[in-house]
């Protein structure tokens, strides 16, 4: 078991290595000279040359990459061009809203989508099954920001039940915290939920047609026991895989959702950075999100062993 985890952990190193090279190249080939920006309008050619030497911009590609990687591994993501603050600090300030939004969406969506998929598979061909599948197809087709505006229009402007936008920290009260996250979570989670529900249904349908399910029913187990203990556990591997892969949808979605709902998180930071071409921030965000994505999928890989003892360590 430990050897398996260790092997999987080692396998993520080349993947993150490619991400690191890509992200570094981004700054390397980015238009504009950071030294000239730092030096300002009144700088002479010598000033710029001096800053070049100070920042090590004269060095060859791989030496610069080495220095940069060394810094990243020590939590140094560089300095933001626009604000002149460390990128690590800027990201840390914005981490809480993004973490709250994505975690809440992830948990709530999974709790809704898997039972929906199970029910659809159990009642295959009925109007409940059709309904779930129609919602799933809609979920794939309705972009999160369009859905976000429809939700705001319905719940905040027309009926005034939920706040239009903004973020309230959990420290300022649990109820306002949740209230501000409900609409963003729905907007962000629909496509993720659609994906999970669809795979759950497909995977359950496959398992429910197996002989051992008929045996379980024949020996008089309750529907609940058949579904939960026999079917769902055997259908789990593809479902968990999609829960992991789908996190990419959450990460992509969070950028737009935070923009629509004016949530001061990492997504908002990214959008501001793009408009100002603040490359160190864009680099930092890509590294962070990719690392999070890789770690989630590593956890998913390891979780296979819980569901399926046949997975060899």
């Amino acid at each position, binding site marked *: 078991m430990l050897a398996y985890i260790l092997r999987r952990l080692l396998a993520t190193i*080349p*993947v*993150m*290595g*490619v*991400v690191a*090279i*890509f*992200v570094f190249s*981004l700054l390397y*080939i*980015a*238009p504009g000279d950071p030294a000239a920006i730092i030096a300002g309008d009144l700088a002479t050619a010598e000033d710029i040359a001096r800053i070049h030497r100070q920042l090590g911009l004269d060095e060859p590609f791989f030496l610069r990459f080495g220095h940069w990687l060394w810094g990243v591994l020590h939590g140094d993501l560089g300095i933001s061009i626009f604000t002149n603050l460390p990128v690590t600090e800027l990201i840390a300030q914005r981490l809480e809203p993004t973490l709250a939004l994505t975690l809440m969406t992830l948990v709530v969506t999974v709790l809704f989508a898997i039972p929906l998929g199970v029910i659809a598979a159990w009642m*295959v*061909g009925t109007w409940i099954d059709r309904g779930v599948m129609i919602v799933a*197809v*809609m979920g*794939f*087709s*309705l*972009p999160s*920001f*369009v859905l976000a*505006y*429809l939700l*705001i*229009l319905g719940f905040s*402007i027309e009926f005034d039940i939920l706040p*239009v936008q903004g973020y309230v920290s959990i420290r300022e009260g649990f109820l306002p915290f949740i209230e501000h996250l409900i609409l963003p979570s729905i907007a962000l989670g629909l496509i993720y939920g659609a994906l999970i529900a*669809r795979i759950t249904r*497909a995977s359950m*349908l*496959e398992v429910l*047609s197996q002989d051992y399910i008929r045996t379980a029913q024949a020996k008089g187990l309750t529907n609940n026991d058949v579904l939960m203990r026999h079917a769902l556990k055997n259908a789990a591997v593809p479902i968990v895989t999609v829960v992991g892969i789908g996190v*990419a*949808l959450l*990460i*992509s979605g969070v*950028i*737009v959702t935070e*923009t*629509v709902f004016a949530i001061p998180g990492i997504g908002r930071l*990214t*959008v501001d950075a*793009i*408009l100002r*071409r603040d*490359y160190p921030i*864009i680099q930092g*965000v*890509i590294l962070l*999100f*990719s690392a999070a*994505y*890789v770690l989630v*999928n590593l956890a998913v890989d390891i979780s296979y062993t819980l569901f399926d003892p046949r997975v060899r360590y």
Partner: protein
Amino acid sequence: MAVAQSEIAAPVARRNWLGEAIRRHPTVIAGLALLLIMAGIAIFAPYLGTVDPISVSPVHRLRFPSERYWFGTDAYGRDVYSRTLYGARISLTVGLGVAILSTAIGLAIGLVTGFSRITDTIVMRIMDGLMSIPPVLLAIALMALTKASVENVVIAITISEVPRVARLVRGVVLSLREQPFVEAAVAAGTPFFRTLWRHILPNTVAPILVQATYICASAMITEAVLSFIGAGTPPQIPSWGNIMAEGRSYFQIKPYLIIFPGIFLSLTVLAVNLVGDGLRDALDPRLARRM
């Protein structure tokens, strides 16, 4: 095993093929029809009662939908109806462009890596790395490097989609290589490229075609997202993402600025997804039963 009624009952006569098709595959036909309408709108936009989508008219700014301005006007007094109709051109161009480019490049990479072990280890490592960057984020990063243009949007989204196609094709090629008919072809001394062309390539068409439709749908959403956050199509070009981005600050008083392009975008993506589902069911019955 869910076998739909329609699969069992074979049609006796094909008198009315259209009626038959609608009865058997209502969603696919609906998707195709919707897609044709959108393509028609994109092609014939100038003749559908539109005015110049970029001509400003400050006197008529922010008008609600009316008989004269069907979808209202935006903050510069531009006609939202005309802008939305012209926006179909951008979305369909980007969707189609990305689908064709990324499947072509992905196919090439997948075929090569499926056959050559050395390139496989190197190239697939790179693909794995690129795949661990969420696609929208990767496209954003690439767009941050270049100037805004429709071509660059297509290239950026293509690069973020290629790894998935390459992986799919490689998987298909690896499993085909073990098939008796390929082994037989190799044993009979068929030249390598002939084997590739006659035996491998035709078998990759079905999964790639299905994948291409899904890529087309997701590319249209990505283009809208990029434009919406200001990293996509240049703001002067009326794309659905741009129209929504401009409507953002007026949304609470003028929701139509976002609702109309939003509905068009959603319907187009829905149409492509329905066609994709239909293709998948038709081309790969085994997969269809599972999904």
